[in-house]
């Protein structure tokens, strides 16, 4: 365990010293820009747009961050021969792989924490401005209080926290997937491209699955069926993680639904790590 944490913290340190967190400036710029542009809209829509943009940006940034960071790890370590010095110590390949993955997760955690804080600060600041303006319009009294309550209901919603956790889970799955790909890939560009392609296919996978299970697709030829079945079994279903959209719109998502999605994500991470380990342990270095 101490070896895994040593590798994990070393990986995080590497990414931090490579200044990957500078992308946060871009994120902050988006949050501020959207808050500024949205200020002309009716308040309900304003918060909506802000939440939508912030969670959307969090989702993209965390996907790009983990995919790029993970895809670089193995090729870079092999090229720099740092891998040899590490594995020549009493460190098993499983410990090495888990350490690297954990390091990426630490990075993801820190990055998402920073983004969430920025987002909540922007949301809170906007809320305060809108409340001040509302109070000025209505003056004190029950009308004003009701209006402020309406503003508060539209702004922050506790469901946003699980939404961020779901984004984390989805990105964690993407990281494990990328690590698995890079355990046999020979260049990081290949890994990144395949990751992005799988990410996109993962969003249309349910269509293939449905057509396959329906057994009466538009094209019942056996080649087509084989293709649909292969797609359904090999590719992940990322659409199931898209309950974030519901939360942005303000719909309630029951706790058991969150639970199932987390469990599914955990399953993906486990399987991808396992397969990645099998590939990696048989790889000639």
């Amino acid at each position, binding site marked *: 365990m101490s070896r895994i944490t040593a590798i994990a913290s070393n990986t995080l340190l590497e990414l931090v010293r*490579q200044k990957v967190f500078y992308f946060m400036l871009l994120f902050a710029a988006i949050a501020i820009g959207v808050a500024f542009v949205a200020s002309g809209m009716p308040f309900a829509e304003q918060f909506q747009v802000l939440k939508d943009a912030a969670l959307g940006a969090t989702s993209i940034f965390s996907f790009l961050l983990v995919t790029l960071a993970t895809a670089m790890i193995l090729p870079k370590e092999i090229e720099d021969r740092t891998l040899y010095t590490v594995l020549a110590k009493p460190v098993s390949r499983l410990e090495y792989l888990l350490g690297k993955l954990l390091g990426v997760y630490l990075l993801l955690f820190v990055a998402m924490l920073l983004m969430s804080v920025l987002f909540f600060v922007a949301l809170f600041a906007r809320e305060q401005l809108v409340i001040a303006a509302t109070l000025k319009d209505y003056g004190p009294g029950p009308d004003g209080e009701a209006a402020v309550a309406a503003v508060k209901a539209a702004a922050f919603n506790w469901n946003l926290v699980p939404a961020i956790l779901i984004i984390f889970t989805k990105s964690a799955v993407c990281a494990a997937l990328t690590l698995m790909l890079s355990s046999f890939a020979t260049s990081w560009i290949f890994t990144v491209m395949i990751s992005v392609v799988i990410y996109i296919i993962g969003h249309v996978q349910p269509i293939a699955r449905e057509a396959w299970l329906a057994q009466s697709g538009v094209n019942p030829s056996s080649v087509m069926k084989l293709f649909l079945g292969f797609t359904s079994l090999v590719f992940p279903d990322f659409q199931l993680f898209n309950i974030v959209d519901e939360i942005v719109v303000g719909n309630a998502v029951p706790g058991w639904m969150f639970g199932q999605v987390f469990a599914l994500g955990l399953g993906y991470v486990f399987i991808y790590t396992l397969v990645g380990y099998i590939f990696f342990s048989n790889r000639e270095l």
Partner: protein
Amino acid sequence: MSEPAISIQHVTKVFPIPFKRERVVAVDDLSLTVEPGQVYGLLGPNGSGKSTTMKIVLGLVTPTAGKTEIFGCDSTRVASREQVGFLPENPYFYKFLTGFETLQFFGKLCGLRAKKRDERARELLALVGLEGAADRRIGGYSKGMLQRIGLAQALVQEPRLLVLDEPTAGVDPAGSREIRDLILGFKARGITVLLCSHLLEQVQEICDRVGILHRGKLISEGRLTDLISIENQTELILENASPELLAEIAATTAASGARLVGQRKPQQNLERYFLDVTGGNQ
């Protein structure tokens, strides 16, 4: 009788070439033994299978056939690496770490406790003469400094065996000499060393025993002195000899039936000259 430090038995490694029917035999039925306390030089031209052999010993590559052991422990097992320190060829470490942090990191990998790790890191930095650069990032180290931090890293868990791949490649003569002295120091402390090199002169200076690999086969092996001394010749080195004396020796030699093969002024070797001139031998 103690166990051998390294035992390689009938090891063969075949690399298939992807998308082709051909295969490359990198190591061909290799057997050799390194006894504890020896400095063993593995020699061979580029592509002779030295690096693959070393990677097999370290468990980085699985042999196609055969078996290797380190102090009796199978190389494919993680535990075998507790006794080994490895210095790869042209080592690169994490550039974003300082020298001190690098040793800390490898100490953690070897399971050293925090206090012990600190002590060990300081001690090793002093040993390889890098105390002054302890807090500088590795990215700014010179070749020689990298090689030295590499040695320190290899020693972090006090292994009984060191595996060094071209330890002086790309290092200037002064640095090279320091590394050579360090290796002789390890030998004095009873550490077994497996050294891979194609710099024959260096091997000659420090190794007890050498093996020569060619196309994956061990073509010659033995004690260095046995391998290179010419049994029926003797060298005489004289100082302030007059031409008359030399003529007399030549005549006596001919009279005794022996043959004078050559007569020349001994030359200082270039390395020594370089070190004298640059003052690097102090």
